[in-house]
């Protein structure tokens, strides 16, 4: 059988997206940031947006994201990425502006900035990584940490009395009139990863169509700070995070379905 295969039959089925640089990422083994990066890069390639996109990095593990993407980029102050993206987008409405933020960045210190970006219907796209912990600073409790979750700043486990409840950002943001597309997806298995990719594509199309604020929340892992193996981490997303953070479409505004069905008609 194998002797019959000729070189002419070989086609490239998997390669580095154009939107990626050839840099090696600094992420820990088993961390799903790499998967999320890949999905964003593929989506930018497929929509041919690499040369018109400006990427706003957060403070947190993804602070180096702009090093990994072959795009114009910048690093916002902690939590301020939606504000910085607003400034970029308002003076260059024809460009695509994407922020990539973790849960400490977006749901805690930057809660006001993301809320008001959504309220204004700011025509930007946010990829929101929720792994229920602060990664970069070494595993402290995040606003998204689940009840009972042990972290370096909640060694007895997160208690409601002490720290309140986990914050569900997608549900919250979906309630704001300016949100056009707000969904949650998960990166814990291949089927969900494929759905996440589709959601990122839709979010970018929503921005291209000028429909307003789009955000894709991605349930992600942090094996190092969770103290779990990569495989156990994926299982933990399913068993511990999905019950509190169900995947779903929380806001699909008028016009979004047309974009999903027909693609983008104009860049206005």
């Amino acid at each position, binding site marked *: 059988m194998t002797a019959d295969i000729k070189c002419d039959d070989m086609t490239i089925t998997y390669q580095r997206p154009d939107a990626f640089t050839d840099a090696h990422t600094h992420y820990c083994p088993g961390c799903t940031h790499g998967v999320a990066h890949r999905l964003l890069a593929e989506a930018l390639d497929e929509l041919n947006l*690499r*040369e*018109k*996109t*400006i990427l*706003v990095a957060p403070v947190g593990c993804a*602070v180096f994201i*702009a*090093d990994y*993407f*072959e*795009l*114009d*980029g*910048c*690093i*916002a*102050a902690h939590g*301020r990425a939606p*504000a*910085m*993206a*607003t*400034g*970029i*987008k*308002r*003076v*260059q409405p024809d*460009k*695509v502006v994407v922020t990539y933020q973790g849960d400490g960045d977006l749901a805690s210190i930057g809660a*006001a*900035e993301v*809320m*008001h970006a959504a309220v204004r219907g700011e025509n930007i796209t946010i990829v929101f990584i929720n792994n229920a912990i602060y990664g970069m600073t070494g595993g402290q409790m995040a606003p998204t940490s689940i009840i009972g979750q042990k972290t370096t700043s909640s060694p007895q486990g997160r208690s409601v009395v002490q720290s309140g409840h986990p914050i569900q950002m997608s549900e919250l943001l979906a309630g704001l009139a300016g949100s056009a597309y707000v969904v949650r997806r998960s990166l814990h298995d291949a089927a969900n990863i494929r759905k996440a990719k589709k959601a990122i594509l839709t979010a970018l199309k929503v921005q291209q169509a000028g429909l307003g604020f789009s955000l894709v929340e991605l349930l992600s892992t942090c094996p190092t700070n969770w103290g779990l193996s990569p495989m156990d981490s994926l299982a933990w997303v399913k068993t511990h995070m999905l019950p509190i953070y169900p995947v779903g479409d929380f806001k699909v505004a008028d016009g979004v379905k047309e974009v999903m069905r027909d693609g983008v008609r104009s860049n206005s």
Partner: protein
Amino acid sequence: MTKQLLKGNVAIAEAAVRAGLEAYFGYPITPQTELLEHLSARMPELGRVFLQAESEVAAINMLYGALSTGARAMTSSSSPGFSLMQEGLSYIAASDIPGVVVDVMRGGPGLGNILPSQGDYFQVTRSAGHGDYRPIVLAPASVQEAIDFTVLAFDLAEQYRHLVIIALDGLIGQMMEPAELPPMRDINTHRPDWALTGAEGRPKRMISSLYLQAEAQEAVNRRTQARLKIISENETRWIEYMTDDADYLLVGYGSAGRIAYSAVQSARRDGLKVGLLRPQTLWPFPSERLHELAGQVRGCLVVEMNAGQMLDDVRLAVNGRVAVDFFGRMGGIVPMPDEILGAIQQMQHERI
């Protein structure tokens, strides 16, 4: 052009428009709000960007984003709001991008009051944010100077790729005076070679203030310091009045400097040889000229609307050559020329 009666805040706003302002982001706070209000009507009328942010924190970071695209953009605030902008100011300065920020100073500390003050002198001149740098600080003493310095601020910011702060006390912001606005400049659509415009047919660009390696961070800091030295050599600005034969020297900026001007006239009528040095740039500070004049006079009197902040810079400049006294009012109280004259007379009795 003819002169028209203009309020300081409105004059700065309109001067910025005419200097080619492309985007403004701000948040209401007294006594600078007229600046924001003027632009809220004017910018959309011209098809330019005006956005009222949810906070000063957001406003300064929106500005950071707009500046990263190479656009002429600015924000403005007053003392408590300016405090909230410190984070963003530091990032803008660290990114080597040109930015203009207006601080209309009010009584403090804390919530203080909405009356005029110069209480932010330390904050604006020392670094205006965490880290290790200094912004250029322009201190107008009249509505006309506020207009002129607004245009100058954009030019200096872009020439040096540096942060420029226009620091004025609330009196200049609120006062109406006849002044002449500059002609309307075209928007500069040219984008510099560091601007984030999308990597179309060119290598990607990065705007960042992150240098994890100590050597890299120090190299950036050294570059900043080298730039500050050039700015210091070329952009130090001040006004002198009757210093040629002065026995006593007043030093004051903004409204305090202008009131000190009246005190000089009163003192001269009384036969006292008093002169005035009014710094127009609080950084770079006219230290060399002050040092020279200190060799000529019998005493210096620093006049400020605070507890004595520029006083430190004057003492550093004078470096013990002559005694340096201080007269200040706080809490939003504006000093009167007679009070300053009294302080001069007291100094004269003590120094003879």
